[in-house]
Every structure is written in structure tokens, then in C-alpha cells.
């Protein structure tokens, strides 16, 4: 914290914004530059950033955040059905309802800490999922998922005389259809705003209090701080982030299914955050990108594509090589993901961000050694660019 000056933060933020906006360019060599995956990067980045506000700062491990994602999605689709095809009300209502839902669940769950809290949130989310899949079908359309139909009223659009023509309408922002790259940029802007807000929160007195909750809740209450409303606020904020992510999922693809609320989905955001680096600003986004990349790209390899990739190898080498690789891609992508989890957490306790920090530190040390600079400046240099600057949770 001491190293993160307003200037370094601004620089960092601008860097982030540029990186996000130019994502279609630099992801191209990795085969990831197509709208849907880019949208997913941004959306799950938002989800993970929000989750990190709760988990990374306060240390409360929620295993039920997917419920808020689901609520956001359902609300957004209902907004498209009842009000308007504009993403603005969809996103606003999605966040609002997810926030209210989070307030209710958080109010109850935050009466407990540690694993008890985790299981309470898990229980609420699983109840939501199970009910959404079965008895709440009139609201959620169950297994099939909530979809748009041509007959939906769309009261606001009707009032304003917006005509969606034949067939199913597409969400559109003042005439720009929310598909493909425009939809990505809509999500990207949301991600940048979400990131900026998370940065403000992390750097604020409020954020300091959240970290104090993580550090020593007992001391904090004897210091005159009512910890529960702080934790609840963090919970609601992160619930609203999840709601935002959920409604963006609906904006880019107006269909909401119950499985979005399943515990595996809650677990996924936990994994994203820890994989990237809990408590760091950038880590959760990285974690989200990596997991979504694996899910969409690694799963798509098959023997034919592998052979095509390695056809420069001689046959006697290519076949066993492809055979070996095929264990880890296609239907084996889960194996790769599992191994990745283990490797990262074994060797990089702070997640991927720790790896980046270590590399940055090593590079700097080498450079300093070359320039003959004194060694003990290390991470306390005033440049404001030290890796530590970006990690309020360290």
C-alpha cells in the first residue's frame, strides 16, 4: 500500500484499460481473439474482481457467489422480456436484484465466520440452484433456460415505439446490436469501470477496514469498528459485481440457465481468484482469463488438429507425441486444468501474480546489479512501480 501512489495507480489503471481495449489484437496469436471468448474474459474478470473484494480483502470465503450471477442473468433476461432490449435497464436491474439477494443472504451468513460461513453461502446457492431447476420453472424456465420470445411485451420499447422486426430481437444499445465485438466493448468498458472501482475500494479507508477484518476481526471490534456492516457491505458489493457479470452474460447472449448457479460455478470463481492471486487487483482477472481460455481452447483440440499442428515432425515422432498431448487436450482438458491448479498452488503460493512479481523482482535485481545500484532499495523504491504497488492484499 505504501508504494501505491495515486500516480502509479493511475498509470497502472491506464495500462490495464489499454490492455483490455486492445485485447482483440494481442489475444490473436493465442487463438483467443473472437468475440465470445473475449466477452467471457471480460465478464468473468468482473465476476472474479467482485469476488476478490469479498474474499481477497475480508477473507470471507463465499461458496455461493454463483447464485448472484444467476440472479443477475435471470433479471436481465426478464428486463429484456418485460421492459426493453436496451442493456442499460437490464444491467441496472440485474445489479440491483443481485445486490438485494446478496444483502439477504449476507445478512444471515455473516453471523458466522470461516468454514461455517462458506457452508452457509453454499447452502443458499444450492437451494437457489435446485429450486431454479425445478419448482421455480415458471420464473426460470428450468432446464431449458429463460429465453426471449417474439411475443414478450417489452413495455418500454413498445411505449417508445421501438420495432424489433420479425424474429427474436437482439439486445441493443441505442441501435448498436450487442453481438460480436460491440458486445465485447460494452463488457470491456464495464470491466474497466469495475476494475477502477475495485481499485478505489482497495485503496480507500473502507478497503483498509476490510483488510483489517481479514487480519484480526477481534482487534478491530475492540478498536470501535462494527465489523459486520463492513463485511456485509463488501458482500453486497461483490454480489452486485456478480449481478453485473450475470446480466452481461445475458446481454451478450440472452439466455439464462440454472446451472449458472450450481456450486461448481461458485467454485469456479473461487478457483479463478486463488489461481490468479487472491487479494491482488489484477490476479482475479488473470485467473478468469486462464480458466476460460482452457475451457474454450484446450477443449477444442482433437487428434486431427493436433496432427495438423505437428505435421512438421517425422511420423515416428509425431504419433506418440500427439498421443501424449491428446491426453491433455480435447476431452482431457480437465486433466490439464487440475494439474495447473496443483502446480500453481504448490510453486506459487500467492497465485499467478506471485509468479509475475517474482519474475519482475528478479529482472529488476539483475538490472540493478548490472547498473551497480545498491541492493537494499529493492521493493521500497520510490518509483511507485514496484510490483508490490498493485497488491493491497499482500
Amino acid at each position: 500500500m505504501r508504494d501505491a501512489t495515486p500516480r502509479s495507480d493511475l498509470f497502472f489503471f491506464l495500462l490495464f484499460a489499454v490492455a483490455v481495449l486492445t485485447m482483440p489484437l494481442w489475444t490473436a496469436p493465442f487463438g483467443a481473439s473472437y468475440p465470445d471468448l473475449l466477452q467471457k474474459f471480460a465478464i468473468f474478470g468482473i465476476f472474479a474482481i467482485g469476488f476478490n473484494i469479498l474474499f481477497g480483502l475480508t477473507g470471507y470465503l463465499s461458496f455461493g457467489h454463483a447464485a448472484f450471477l444467476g440472479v443477475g442473468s435471470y433479471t436481465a433476461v426478464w428486463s429484456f422480456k418485460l421492459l426493453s432490449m436496451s442493456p442499460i435497464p437490464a444491467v441496472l436491474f440485474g445489479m440491483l436484484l443481485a445486490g438485494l439477494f446478496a444483502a439477504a443472504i449476507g445478512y444471515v451468513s455473516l453471523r458466522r465466520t470461516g468454514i461455517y460461513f462458506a457452508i452457509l453461502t453454499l447452502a443458499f446457492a444450492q437451494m437457489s440452484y435446485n429450486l431454479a431447476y425445478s419448482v421455480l420453472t415458471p420464473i426460470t424456465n428450468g432446464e431449458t433456460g429463460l429465453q426471449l420470445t417474439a411475443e414478450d411485451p417489452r413495455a418500454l420499447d413498445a411505449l417508445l415505439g421501438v420495432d424489433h422486426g420479425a424474429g427474436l430481437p437482439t439486445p441493443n444499445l441505442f441501435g448498436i446490436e450487442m453481438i460480436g465485438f460491440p458486445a465485447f466493448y460494452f463488457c470491456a468498458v464495464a470491466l474497466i469501470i469495475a476494475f477502477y472501482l475495485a481499485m478505489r475500494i482497495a485503496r480507500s479507508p473502507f478497503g483498509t477496514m476490510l483488510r483489517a477484518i481479514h487480519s484480526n476481526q477481534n482487534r478491530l471490534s475492540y478498536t470501535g469498528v462494527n465489523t459486520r456492516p463492513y463485511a456485509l457491505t463488501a458482500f453486497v458489493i461483490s454480489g452486485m459485481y456478480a449481478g453485473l457479470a450475470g446480466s452481461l452474460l445475458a446481454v451478450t447472449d440472452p439466455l439464462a440457465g440454472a446451472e449458472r448457479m450450481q456450486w461448481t460455478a461458485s467454485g469456479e470463481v473461487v478457483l479463478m481468484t486463488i489461481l490468479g492471486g487472491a487479494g491482488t487487483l489484477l490476479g482475479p482477472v488473470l485467473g478468469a482469463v486462464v480458466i476460460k481460455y482452457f475451457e474454450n481452447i484446450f477443449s477444442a483440440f482433437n487428434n486431427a488438429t493436433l496432427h495438423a499442428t505437428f505435421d512438421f515432425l517425422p511420423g515416428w515422432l509425431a504419433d506418440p507425441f500427439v498421443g501424449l498431448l491428446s491426453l491433455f487436450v480435447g476431452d482431457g482438458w480437465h486433466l490439464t486444468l487440475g494439474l495447473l491448479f496443483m502446480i500453481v498452488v504448490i510453486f506459487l503460493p500467492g497465485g499467478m501474480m506471485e509468479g509475475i512479481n517474482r519474475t519482475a523482482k528478479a529482472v529488476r535485481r539483475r538490472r540493478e546489479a548490472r547498473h551497480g545500484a545498491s541492493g537494499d532499495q529493492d521493493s521500497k523504491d520510490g518509483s511507485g512501480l514496484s510490483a508490490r504497488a498493485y497488491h493491497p492484499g499482500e
Partner: protein
Amino acid sequence: MDAFVLQILNGLDKGGAYALIALGLTLIFGTLGVVNFAHGALFMLGAFCAVSLQKLLTLSQQIKDESVTFFDAYKEVPYLEIWFGDTGSMIIDYAVPLSILLAIPVMLLIGLVMERGLIQYFYKRTHAEQILVTFGLAIVLQEIVKSVFGANPVPTPAPEIVAGSADIGAMFGLGAGVVYPWWRLIYLVFSLIVIAIVFAFLQFTTFGMVVRAGMADRETVGLLGINIQRRFTIVFGIAAIVAGLAGVMYTPILPPDYHIGMEFLVLSFVVVVVGGMGSLPGAVTAGFLLGILQSFASMTEVKDLIPGIDQIIIYLVAVVILLVRPRGLLGRKGVMEG
């Protein structure tokens, strides 16, 4: 009334499975302080011990079905039957109970290797990191099993003699036609025996006393110059055996597939927490309690009253219990609350 008895039996049966998994989980929590998301995978590996033994015993001579062209279709006659006739068939028939003998050493070995090779480095790490690494391990184990045995469930029947149902109506003077599968009764008894053995072991052996003392206050026991660490490693092995045995014996009830552990994982965590972290009796009580409640909630009469209640009952009960009793049914203060 009869319906009630049957539902209680169903509940106890389910509860037996929950209790066995939760018992191992809470042992590991209590001793090593590790959140083991790979515990479901241990259950799964146990189940696949049974599958492996069955596959081994049914290694077959293949008699080609000549009516099928284009590919090779066989009628399979196990070598055991060819060599030993009815004795061979009987051995095959008893594959599941026999695999208990296989599962005990195998699961112990897996448990020890897992603890020494991986878990021991995570004692001091955060719970989140423990979750990540054990979850990763669970996925890896699953995928390995999937690549060997495929993704479909594998039928693993109970021995012929207990494949059917017991007429408990006649046995206990209930109504006519009240039957219950033999194997489920065996499973219930088996789980009670395993639970009793674990408790007796912890209660009456020196080893167990040290472990219990270690669960209560690790530092002090460490100060006494007792190598608590090595004992905890063995505890992990025991937990693995218990989970594995639960898996072995469950195979005739639920044909196992590679994913079976994940399905039990979340539920068994709920059981452990409802029982109270670090409490062995709590885990067992909660296991049976939730099993029975789940059975009752599934009764048509109850479902008509509250639609969908069977879908959420376990979680609902968990919420209520945790709100009324902050540390679950029998939990101790300060365990896993940080």
C-alpha cells in the same frame, strides 16, 4: 407406519454413507487442519478398487459371436469359471465384498502417499490454497480413472445371495410386503461397524489417545516430545481407508463412475459442518440425521405440502442448524472459524 420404517431405513442407509465420508473428512480437519477437497476422490478410488477387482476376476475367454460381422463381438466366459467351475463363479459373485481386502491396503497406501507427497506441505497454507490444491488433485485422479475405465457407470452387483430383498415385514412383525434390500441392510451394519472400530481405536488405544489429544491441543502434545506428525500421517491413511471402504460397499447401490466422488463431496462437507468441525460424533450424528431428513422430505405427503422440499432439505437444515448452533451440532470453538 411401514412407510415410515422404510424411510428411516433409507435415511440410515444414506446416512451411513454420509457419516463414513464425513468421519474421514473431519478426522483430517481435526488433526491436520487441512480442508481436503480430494476426499470425494478417495471415495471414488475405493469404488474403483471394487471395479478393478471385478474386472480382474472376470478376465474372460472370448468366444466370438460369428453372427456379427464388421467388428468383433464376443460372448465372454471368465477364466475363473472355466478353470474352477462353480467355485469360480462364486468368487466372481463375491467380487465386491472381496475387494474390501484389496481396498484396505490400497487405500492406506494412497492415503500415505497423498499425505507425504502433497498434503504435508499444505499444513500451514491458507484453507483457500488447500482447497485449490486438493481440488486440483481430485480432478487429476478423476481424469485418470476416466481414461482407464471410461465415463459410463460400471455395474458392480452384490453377491447373488444378497442381491434381492429381505422380508423385514415378516421379521419384525410389520405389514406384509415390507421388504428391504439385503445389501442395503448390510451396508448399514457395515457402516456402523466401521464407525465403531474407528471410535474404539481412537478411544482405547494409546495411539488414538494421542491423536485425540492432538486434535484438542496440537501444540501441547507436540511439546510432550511425541511425534504427533507421524501419527497424523497414519490418521490420513485411516481416513482414506474409511472413505475407500464406504466407496467399495456402495458400488452395488450406485454403479460407480469417475465422477461419483464429486457428487458426495459437497454433501459430505455440509454434513461435517452441520456436525461441527473437528467433532467425530458430530459428523456421524449429522450424517444419519441429514440422511433421515432427506428421506422424509422425499415422501409424497411432504412434497405435496411443500413442493420441492426434497431438493433443498439438506441445505435448509444446514442453514437452520448453523444459525441456531453457531458451531454445528457438536463443534468446538475456534476450529476453522478463522
